[in-house]
């Protein structure tokens, strides 16, 4: 029983991270029908930027939490700018071209960012400094829950709620949803679709940077190929919930996190990826529109 509860908390933590990253995939796919393969790498870029700031604080008299907050702010800003530049340089010129051209451009961007990280920070695994956050641990029915886990779960919930309110209860959020349903009609209604797309490339990477830095803080490590692994998981989460569907990405992330935690806890971990991809293929066969249904612009 205590293992069961432990896995629930582990799964919720990882699921919150997946959800934060999945939102970037699903929002971009919703308005552009493009799998932004570079998104996972952008998120890990956030982890590395945070890592650099945190490592520089070691030895100085800076308090941990304040430094961590600063690391988050800088990572968010840099990654959001990188996302915007990516959109302008690699995707905007291809908006009217064959869809596959944009896919290859996205793959190129992913390779570029991943290897850019390797050139700057090197190919080794970097360890996150310890002692940044309180080492408090709570015990619930025999399961240990750490401060970091509680922080990640709460922060993901707050961010997701904020995004949900923004998309469903503001004028600009309505414009995003309108562009995701039908770009041409949205344009006729006076919505600046280019601005909507640019905003999606700021919000998605900003949330992703938080997710990436959470990965670093939670697993206490960062390496340059991490973006692919976590990016693919987050993308699977987006499909699980229904691609283009923002609450779907949140639900998909949490469910996939729980699924992975139980797969790792009860089945062999060397087959964990295979089990996750098996789940993905099963979803695609049984219910390709995801649990909450997809919401995707129909481009002709």
């Amino acid at each position, binding site marked *: 029983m205590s293992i069961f509860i432990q896995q629930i908390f582990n799964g919720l933590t990882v699921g919150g991270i997946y959800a934060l990253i999945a939102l970037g995939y699903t929002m971009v796919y919703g308005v552009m029908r493009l799998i932004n393969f570079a998104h996972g790498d952008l998120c890990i870029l956030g982890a590395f930027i945070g890592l650099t700031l945190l490592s520089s604080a070691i030895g100085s008299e800076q308090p941990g939490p304040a430094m961590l907050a600063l690391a988050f702010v800088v990572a968010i800003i840099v990654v959001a700018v990188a996302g915007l530049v990516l959109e302008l340089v690699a995707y905007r010129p291809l908006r009217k071209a064959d869809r596959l051209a944009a896919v290859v451009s996205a793959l190129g961007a992913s*390779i*570029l960012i991943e290897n850019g990280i390797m050139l700057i920070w090197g190919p080794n695994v970097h360890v996150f400094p310890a002692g940044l956050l309180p080492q408090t641990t709570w015990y619930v029915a025999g399961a240990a829950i750490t401060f970091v886990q509680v922080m990640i779960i709460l922060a993901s919930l707050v961010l997701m709620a904020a995004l949900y309110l923004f998309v469903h209860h503001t004028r600009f959020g309505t414009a995003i949803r309108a562009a995701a349903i039908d770009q041409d009609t949205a344009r006729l209604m006076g919505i600046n679709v280019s601005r909507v797309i640019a905003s999606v490339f700021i919000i998605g990477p900003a949330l992703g940077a938080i997710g990436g830095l959470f990965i670093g803080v939670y697993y206490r490590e960062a390496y340059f190929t991490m973006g*692919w692994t976590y990016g693919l998981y987050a993308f699977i989460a987006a499909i699980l919930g229904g691609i283009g569907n923002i609450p779907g990405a949140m639900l998909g992330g949490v469910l996939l996190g729980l699924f992975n935690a139980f797969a790792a806890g009860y089945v062999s971990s060397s087959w964990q990826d295979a089990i996750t991809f098996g789940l993905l293929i099963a979803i*695609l066969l049984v219910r390709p529109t995801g649990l909450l249904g997809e919401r995707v612009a129909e481009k002709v």
Partner: protein
Amino acid sequence: MNWVGAALWVLGLGIPAVVDTTWVSVAAVFAIYAITALSEDIILGRAGMFDMGHAVYLGLGAYVTAILNVAFNWPIFATMPVAIMLAAAVGALLAAPLIRLRGDYLLVATIGFNAIFVLAMQNNAAGLTGGSDGITGVDVPHLFSWELASQSAMFWLDWVVLGFVLLLMRNLDRCEFGRTLRYLKQDQLAATTLGVNARAAKTLAFAIGAGLAALAGSLFAVQLSTVGPTSFVFTESVTLFAIVIVGGQGSIPGILLGTALMFVVPQIFRNLAEYRYFVFGIAMIAVMVLRPQGLWPRRKRAA
């Protein structure tokens, strides 16, 4: 154009006479990857199915040849038909339930197959695949009493197979099945109303593409004399996918040019290993932004 291509192929036979063995092996690897890229073009460029796990079929061919040869002492040429048939069957079985899905979902599913394949090879599935070390000691091919042991002999073998595949691709352009695929890609609804069985045609295209990739895989196992899971990871599939789009969908010279750029040019810049992939990423974006239709797009000609 066809005469120019045929003349270039004949000239290519002379490669071992002018360059040293290192470059002969680069040329052999080019031929092998060109076959694989052409087989990806059947699925992606001609049938319009987004297959981002094509390294699976290359790997299946390589593993079948390696296992049958090393563990069961089959001669290399006897393993090839088995490799082709098995990969074609696997390709058809995997694709059949998925081709009704929208392109992007097929793409993600094939990424999943690739990850599962690599894990299965690494975890030594059925005790045959040798785990992460793979299988070593693949024999050289024997043609009657003639042993194709030298690098030049292996190059000629690869080059002849490439020539055969090029002829096949040219015929595919002209035959009814090729026209069916083009029609399906342009307008599936219109094609089906004229009686085209979309599902059967697409499954067949997937099987042919997978089978040809396995043929290349057999040659790959022979060329390296060793087979391991790292040669068939997802990155390889991405490269094959990119070759078709960067070169030009459905364009034979485009695919060959793409193969040369993606597999051979990196060999030349081996010394700049660290910056290689960084530049590679920039180049992929630049080519797509400047030439979204590919470097050497398919000629439009009156049907």
